[in-house]
């Protein structure tokens, strides 16, 4: 996450609490797999129909890439995180190719647990900037929390 995105994420988390969201976090479909001291969590997100959000990778310099961040927690460290099951779309802007996401995507995060941890929360925030075919909207931050227990 670059400096520019960090500032944006901070500002929109401060002022964007009551703004309409265009991405939904499907808490009921979260998948948690535990193996020894590692926990792999798959977080499903759904982008509202007719909207697209900027790609998490291959985003142009002119756009705000979709980013996920997790709150630091003394119970675990984040070992790995990646976007998967993405539905990529390509939009051509003059001569430039512009990558966006639509429909659904998942974020998989691997946590390494500290000793004797049995019940804790995973808190995160998804920063995204949505557009339709006729409209581009200010960036939003979608905060989410899940509970993980043994």
């Amino acid at each position, binding site marked *: 996450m670059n400096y*520019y995105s960090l500032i*944006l994420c901070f500002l929109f988390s401060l002022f964007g609490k009551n*703004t*309409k969201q265009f991405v939904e976090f499907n808490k009921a479909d979260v998948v948690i797999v535990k193996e020894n001291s590692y926990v792999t969590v798959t977080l499903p997100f759904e982008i509202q129909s007719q909207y697209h959000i*900027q790609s998490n990778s291959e985003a*142009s310099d*002119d*756009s*705000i890439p979709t980013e996920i961040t997790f709150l630091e927690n003394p119970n675990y460290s984040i070992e790995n995180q990646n976007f998967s099951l993405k539905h990529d779309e390509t*939009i051509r*802007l*003059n001569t*430039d190719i*512009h990558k966006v996401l639509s429909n659904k995507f998942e974020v998989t995060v691997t946590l390494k647990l500290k000793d004797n941890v049995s019940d804790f929360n995973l808190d995160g925030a998804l920063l995204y*900037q949505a*557009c*339709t*075919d*006729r*409209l*581009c*909207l*200010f*960036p939003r931050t979608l905060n989410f929390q899940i509970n993980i227990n043994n």
Partner: protein
Amino acid sequence: MKKIILKLVFGIAMINNLAYAQNSEIESDTEPPEVKMFSLISTEGDTVNLSDYKGKFVVIHIATTWCPYCNAEAPYLEEIYKEYHDKNVEVLIIDVKESKDLVQGRIKNKFNLSFPVLLDTDGAVAASFAPADVLPELARDEIMLASNFLIDPNGKIQFMSLLDTKNFDVKLIHLKKRLNELL
């Protein structure tokens, strides 16, 4: 009475155009709406009053640094400025809710723009262009991003376009066509 009805019909048509049409040109037999005057600070620190442009054609583009469509249009706005400036045409970009340094670097300097880029720091001017009852669930200042306006020398809005990514008019062909008709 006939004039009032005509104005009402035109007003409703304008609202529909703002919401759903890529390009809106004002028919010659109807009265174009008047632009709301504004005063904003440019990235150079100058106060720019729209009223100072009375007697000139003014192209206005509403933008942000992170809007890919706005950025794609920026070089073509510069092209319009260079091609039409000696024909009594001015160009302004209104950036919505971003800092001077960011806008200076990511718009004004990046695209080497010869015309002023204005800072609508609270989004009030962008909001003033938005019809109150279109997309009421959204903030007024965000529904006009990436839109273009052509104001005539009498302060009347002669053309407006909203973003249409499926038929993206990056080269501003429709705006130039309208400009050529009016000049």
